[in-house]
């Protein structure tokens, strides 16, 4: 027996391994990507790449699979050159730290260009010290190669002013020459580099990044709020993103926005509004090609109405400042007539919104835009033109500063350091390059920072050491939520099981004993109807009858963090649905089994011996008749799990099934794998239980 169980457990592990590989490969092959799913389709390619990198998703798939299976910490240790360790804080958070030579825990973060060491004290507090001595030039010849490439890019860069370009090129050439030479030591290299790097430093405006972010936020906030501009953005998105990658909710929100734009334009251009309405209709119908064609038609007119402010906003978002300046200048140029062709109220609104947005961070540009908006409102086109021209000049200046700082930053030699960051990742920090890292900070949106990490290895122990990783969707450990969800599902299934088993076995026995009579007919046809009806249909009927028409019990479940048994009324309908589905199935099997047993010769013998009916049924028949149903039910667990998923979705019950469904829709790999492993373990364990139970019920079988 022990050997048999052991072999089955080994088989289970093998199945889990195969399933995990299969799930991984299929998820890998699936279209769509988790960054878009988690962050929405409005993220820029840079933000997407940055997100993927931070989650370690830019690595080849076998590396990611191995990280998930056996962990990444041992690999990270080699990179960092220090052991790393996972601790659990007093608040229950799991944190990764590096262990310093003296045994203290240490991890790092960046403040500006400074590396800050966070040392954890025995009492749990953290002291911060500047730790810039750890920076190293990793590989001078590689740096030289990169810089040579960069030099070529700068020479072509059309966003840079000529004077700035020359200055940067001069310093770059010097640095390349220094890197090319042999240096006796790292200190000597640092000393030689200090002069040209100081020159580059002088060209950097410390506020450049803030200004850049402000302009980009201006684009997304003002552009995102204005429904007419949004229509142009939708046009762009529809032509850029393949229709298959758009989710239903994306398309629905697009249609909603187009309807909004149509409303806004009803006054200015009724025909255009009609066309937009029609596009929204096509989107609702899922006819993307028709929607795109209509948008293609209306785009030029939309552009005209908004005075090309759409182009302006795109250009800002794409950091193409030259084009943004050109767009603004065109609006201010009397010979173009752009201002006259546009819907001036709309433009005034937009300009005012932009001015308002820029008030704090770029006051001068903001003021000119607000001025232009005021002029337009007082129908003074001439002054408005002047204000717009002034705004264009201010933007030009700001843009030069931003671009110069950015490019100068990129020309410095990168210093690197591998360490553990405060986000539980092993990261390679890089100082001195223009590498921009985008982080989604809850509440304040996307924040860009320069000099962030260039490479990430998310630290995890791996499944074999009991760590299923972090959910990509929530950023929380999969294990936390997974087991709470599993508990909820087990509560649901358990209650249903306790109700179903005695009831179904009893009814099945009754039907089997009365084979062919009315009671058997009613029970078996009724049972069949419930067992073949899809779970969601049964669920909907129960909601309609008991929650809608009779209004007896709640038709949905809301639990939040609470345990399901704290609101038992909400459990009634989900349990009833599961019960009905399982009842029919078990009943039918019990009935068939009972009917078969009653035809056996030993039962006939018992009758002929003159034993009382009651005794024959309970002593001889029942035990043999129950053998089949009990094992079949155990094998039925796979099916039951499917039923639970559907029931959970119908009632919004926070169980394992809905968790896996949501994760699948998000392509949240770690969560899907974690859930799949639990499901396989449950399925295989119940099958094992069925086999063991069978040996107790039927002593003729021996497992060896």
């Amino acid at each position, binding site marked *: 027996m022990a050997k048999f169980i052991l072999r089955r457990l080994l088989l289970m592990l093998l199945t889990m391994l195969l399933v995990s590989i299969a799930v991984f490969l299929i998820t890998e*092959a699936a*279209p769509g990507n988790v960054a878009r799913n988690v962050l929405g389709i409005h993220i820029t390619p840079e933000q997407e790449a940055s997100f993927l990198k931070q989650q370690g998703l830019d690595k080849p798939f076998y590396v990611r699979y191995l990280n998930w299976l056996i962990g990444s910490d041992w690999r990270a240790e080699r990179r960092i050159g220090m052991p790393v360790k996972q601790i659990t804080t007093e608040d229950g958070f799991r944190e990764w730290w590096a262990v310093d030579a003296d045994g203290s825990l240490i991890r790092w973060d960046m403040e500006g260009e400074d590396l800050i060491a966070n040392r954890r004290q025995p009492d749990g507090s953290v002291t911060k010290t500047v730790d810039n001595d750890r920076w190293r030039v990793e590989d001078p010849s590689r740096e030289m190669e990169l810089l040579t490439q960069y030099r070529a890019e700068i020479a072509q860069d059309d966003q840079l002013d000529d004077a700035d370009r020359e200055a940067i090129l001069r310093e770059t050439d010097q640095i390349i020459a220094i890197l090319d030479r042999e240096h006796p030591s790292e200190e000597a290299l640092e000393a030689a580099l200090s002069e040209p790097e100081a020159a580059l430093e002088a060209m950097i405006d410390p506020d450049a990044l803030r200004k850049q972010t402000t302009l980009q936020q201006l684009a997304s906030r003002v552009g995102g709020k204005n429904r007419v501009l949004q229509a142009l953005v939708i046009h762009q998105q529809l032509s850029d993103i393949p229709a298959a990658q758009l989710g239903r909710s994306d398309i629905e929100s697009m249609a909603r926005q187009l309807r909004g734009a149509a409303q806004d334009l009803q006054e200015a251009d009724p025909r255009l509004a009609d066309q937009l309405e029609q596009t929204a209709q096509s989107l609702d119908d899922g006819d993307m090609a028709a929607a795109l064609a209509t948008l293609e038609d209306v785009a030029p007119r939309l552009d005209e109405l908004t005075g090309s402010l759409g182009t302006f906003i795109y250009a800002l978002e794409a950091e193409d400042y030259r084009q943004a300046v050109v767009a603004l200048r065109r609006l201010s140029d009397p010979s173009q007539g752009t201002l006259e062709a546009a819907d001036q109220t709309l433009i005034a609104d937009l300009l005012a919104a932009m001015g308002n947005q820029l008030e704090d961070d770029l006051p001068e540009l903001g003021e000119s835009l607000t001025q232009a908006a005021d002029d337009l409102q007082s129908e003074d086109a001439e002054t408005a033109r002047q204000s717009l021209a002034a705004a264009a000049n201010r933007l030009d200046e700001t843009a030069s500063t931003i671009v110069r700082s950015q490019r100068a930053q990129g020309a410095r030699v990168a210093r690197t350091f591998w360490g553990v960051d405060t986000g539980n990742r092993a990261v390679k920090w890089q100082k001195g390059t223009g590498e921009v890292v985008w982080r989604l900070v809850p509440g304040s949106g996307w924040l860009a920072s320069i000099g962030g990490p260039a490479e990430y290895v998310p630290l995890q122990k791996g499944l074999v050491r009991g760590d299923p990783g972090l959910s990509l969707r929530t950023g929380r450990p999969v294990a936390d939520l997974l087991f709470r969800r599993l508990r909820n599902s087990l509560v649901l299934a358990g209650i249903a099981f306790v109700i179903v088993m005695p009831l179904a076995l009893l009814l099945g026995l009754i039907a089997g004993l009365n084979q062919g009579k009315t009671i058997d007919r009613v029970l078996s046809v009724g049972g069949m109807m419930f067992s073949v009806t899809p779970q969601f249909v049964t669920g909907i009927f129960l909601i309609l009858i008991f929650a809608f028409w009779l209004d007896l019990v709640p038709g949905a479940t809301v639990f939040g963090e609470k345990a399901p048994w704290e609101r038992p009324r909400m459990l009634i309908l989900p349990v009833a649905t599961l019960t009905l589905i399982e009842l029919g199935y078990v009943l039918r099997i019990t009935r068939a089994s009972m009917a078969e047993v009653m035809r056996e010769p030993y039962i006939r013998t018992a009758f002929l011996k003159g034993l009382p009916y009651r005794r024959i049924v309970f002593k001889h028949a029942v035990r043999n008749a129950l053998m089949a149903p009990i094992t079949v039910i155990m094998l039925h667990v*796979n099916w039951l799990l*499917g039923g639970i*998923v559907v029931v959970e979705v*119908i009632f919004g019950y926070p169980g394992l099934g809905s968790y896996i469904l949501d994760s699948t*829709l998000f392509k949240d790999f770690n969560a899907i794998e974690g859930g799949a492993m639990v499901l396989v373990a449950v399925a295989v364990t119940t099958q094992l239980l069925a086999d063991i139970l069978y040996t107790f019920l039927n002593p003729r079988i021996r497992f060896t």
Partner: protein
Amino acid sequence: MAGTEQTMPKTSAQPSGLARLWEGISILFESKIAVVGLLIILFWIFVAIFAPLLTPYTPTEQDYTAQNEAPSARHPLGTDSLGRDIWTRLIYGARVVLVVLPVTETFWLPLGTALWGVLLGLLVGSTLGLMGGYLGGWVDEVVMRLLDAMMAFPVVLLYMIIIAAVGASATNVVLAIAIVGTPGIARLVRSLTLDIRTRDYVRAAEVRGESPWYIMFVEILPNARGPIIVDAMLRVGYAIFAMGTLGFLGLGLPPPSPDWGSMVAKGRQYILSGSPWAALWPSVAIGSLVVGLNLFADGLSEESTRYQ
């Protein structure tokens, strides 16, 4: 077939084909349950085929002045949240299930999505089962271990992952149904093959020097058709069940296709706000069709065993 009958004297004693068909039909009418089931199935096939004649609307026609309406003379079963006629969507939905398979927007295959799923599953499953059962050895071992692993996989998870991987469309629903159905069919065919391969006519074919593929598909498969057909009938019911569930979970046919499962999923949001019709009718439709199929299969098998 002549050769088969000589080796099986029992069948030669049976009446001719037409008489056997008549016997079958009369058995069917003996069972009230089977007749009820058949009537339900025929009803859905009828409305599916003649759908355009039975309604003045199209399934995607929206009426913003009539959203979430109760049944009325204009809309016999009411309207959904976009003002579409529910009756129209139901009968066009029946088409997709029973009569046509929309491969692309313009290219439609005859036979419904559910039927294609079962047929494809039969094709793959039978081939695997025949190979495992007839060729034996390592082929059998590999096929069976593969199928075991697939069966250890919870069905719904398998559906979700397959659809997530290939995207939601009618063709992919067919694929998912086929993949999930394959292990069961393969097991059945394998066990039948193990039995049939010992028969004399298989021996004879082997002696004649026929290739293994000829023996598998011409000698063994036709002789195993009885149980396979009964199994397939039940599987059609299950395929419709699966289509509904996939649609309900948001993994079925993409909108605005009239898909029963997704109609329920969409209508569900409006039940507690007082318009149950959009969720009720597709539920009734899918429930009745699946129950009808099972009543039919059940009644038939019960009556035929009684006559044996």
